[in-house]
């Protein structure tokens, strides 16, 4: 799953079009757009809005763990060329001094910069940081929903010392994001592939659900059943979980015993398949 969080509608429109997103009909606190497992929300400007929108979307989007969370938007910078796309390798909340370090392990091809989130537009650009108003609200909120590698801020330089923010029109904002829509979507897809691999590795055999409805398993036994099913899937790939012995079992304990006995008879190979 990918979640895009954008502050302004003008920033969001290019991605909404490119990704074929439709306005969600669900009642939501913030506007939500969706196409399959790709979600986008428009938070409004500022840290509080960004944090609230991330939290709200987490609940709207089935509370999926290990999703990709991208805060995409425009940012100021002292002297980078207008239109430059950067990821944030640090996110600093100027007001509190809090700082986060998004791991840049899956962002090949996009150069990175520090990002400072401010409460009012920064017009002096005092250092080499990108300046925005959402990153430090978005990042800690999204970090509660996913793993740090999949939570990133992607910013397009919109204003600099030589190109004042005052001349930034809604149309120009849209153009700046639109110019990078492919790179942004590709980054999301690459991150999703990585996080999907984590999730698919944890998928459990559908027969586990069937067994859970047939017998009463305690919480501990449910965990044991899930792990036994995983181990059997690795040691004897392709073989059904419910064989004759398991089908005959009359209790949860007997099911676990039958599975453990089957596991114990399998030869140990260090490679599957």
């Amino acid at each position, binding site marked *: 799953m990918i979640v895009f969080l954008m502050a302004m509608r003008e920033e969001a429109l290019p991605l909404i079009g490119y990704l074929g997103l439709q306005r969600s009909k669900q009642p939501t606190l913030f506007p939500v757009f969706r196409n399959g497992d790709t979600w986008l929300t428009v938070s409004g400007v500022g840290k509080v809005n960004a944090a609230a929108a991330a939290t709200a979307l987490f609940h709207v989007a089935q509370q999926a763990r290990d999703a990709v969370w991208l805060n995409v938007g425009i940012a100021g910078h002292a002297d980078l060329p207008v239109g430059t796309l950067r990821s944030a390798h640090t996110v600093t909340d100027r007001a509190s001094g809090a700082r986060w370090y998004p791991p840049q392990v899956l962002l090949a091809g996009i150069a990175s910069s520090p990002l400072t989130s401010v409460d009012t537009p920064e017009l002096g650009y005092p250092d080499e940081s990108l300046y925005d108003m959402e990153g430090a609200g978005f990042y800690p909120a999204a970090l509660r929903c996913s793993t740090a*590698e999949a939570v990133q801020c992607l910013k397009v330089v919109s204003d600099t010392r030589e190109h004042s923010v005052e001349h930034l029109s809604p149309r120009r904002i849209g153009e700046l994001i639109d110019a990078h829509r492919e790179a942004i979507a590709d980054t999301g897809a690459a991150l999703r592939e990585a996080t999907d691999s984590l999730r698919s590795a944890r998928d459990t055999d559908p027969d586990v659900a069937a067994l859970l409805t047939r017998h009463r398993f305690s919480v501990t036994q449910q965990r044991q059943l899930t792990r036994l099913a995983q181990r059997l899937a690795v040691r004897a790939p392709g073989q059904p979980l419910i064989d004759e012995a398991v089908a005959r079992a009359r209790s949860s304990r007997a099911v676990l015993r039958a599975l453990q006995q089957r596991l114990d008879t399998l030869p*140990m190979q*260090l490679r599957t398949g």
Partner: protein
Amino acid sequence: MIYIEDALGGHPRAQRILARFPQATRVGCARYTEVFNPRAQNFRLQKRDPALLLAHKHRRLVLPAPPGYGIGGTHNYYFSHMLNCVYDCRYCFLQGMFRSAHYVVFVNYEDFATAIDSTLARHDGDHCWFFSGYDCDSLAYDPVTGFAEWALECFARRPRAHLELRTKSTQIRSLLAREPLPNVVVAFSFTPAGAHAALEHKVPSLNKRLAALRKLADAGWRIGLRFDPLIYSAGYAADYRQLFEQVFAAVPGSSVHSVSFGAFRLPRDFFKTLVSLYPREPLFAGPLDTAAATIGYRNDLEAELLDFCEVQLRDRVNADRLFRCLP
């Protein structure tokens, strides 16, 4: 990406390391722990492209080695100039211990020397062992860290201190560049070919490591052989017999300082983390006693594996140089 603690400033070793990566983005931080090991990090994802962290080690520079880690010495300690490893061995406890796969290099080596001196002073007149390959591979990242050159100089001046460099690498240039030291053992870890292929990702081939080992032995260095962890598989007996034949054929008996072996074991919490990272790893789906506080092979299989290997090793090395690692 290289993260550097702000306080390191112009530390010469940090500067030397940075100079090796002129294209890398440099990011300052107050303490490396801001980047390394905070919550919500995934070791498996980070292992795809780990960053380098340059840091200063402030406390606990030299620590007592876990019981059962020694090779005949009475006083055993370890120290870590680095956290994490360039290799990706599926059985490695570091995956369970750390949330981050980034490499942390503590550049204040001289403070390790001071801590080693303090440790030696506590054991007046006695010899002490210092193991350097506990939280990392001692040599694998040596072209970057320059650790071996420093460590050899350090231990050359401290004859009461013994050093074990433990490695799976072939980075032996700094050892070959100088005369061997009687108080240094270069220990190589091995598993059979099948386990190496399945579990020791990015580790140089057995033949390359045996060639490195041979060069060191020929140069006069004392060699340690480490068969730890022992990995169980259906054909373990034939696999280990072949491995022992290959390894002992490559190194003259007179060069072998010590041989140690021990079964695959992990603390329960580390094991749970590893399973959540790699639920489809056959090693973790194997015949393990998952109810115990320390996860290892079922008692009967572990005893069978250990006893078989001990018999094989006793045929090849004197008992006074053979050590069974305790759990």
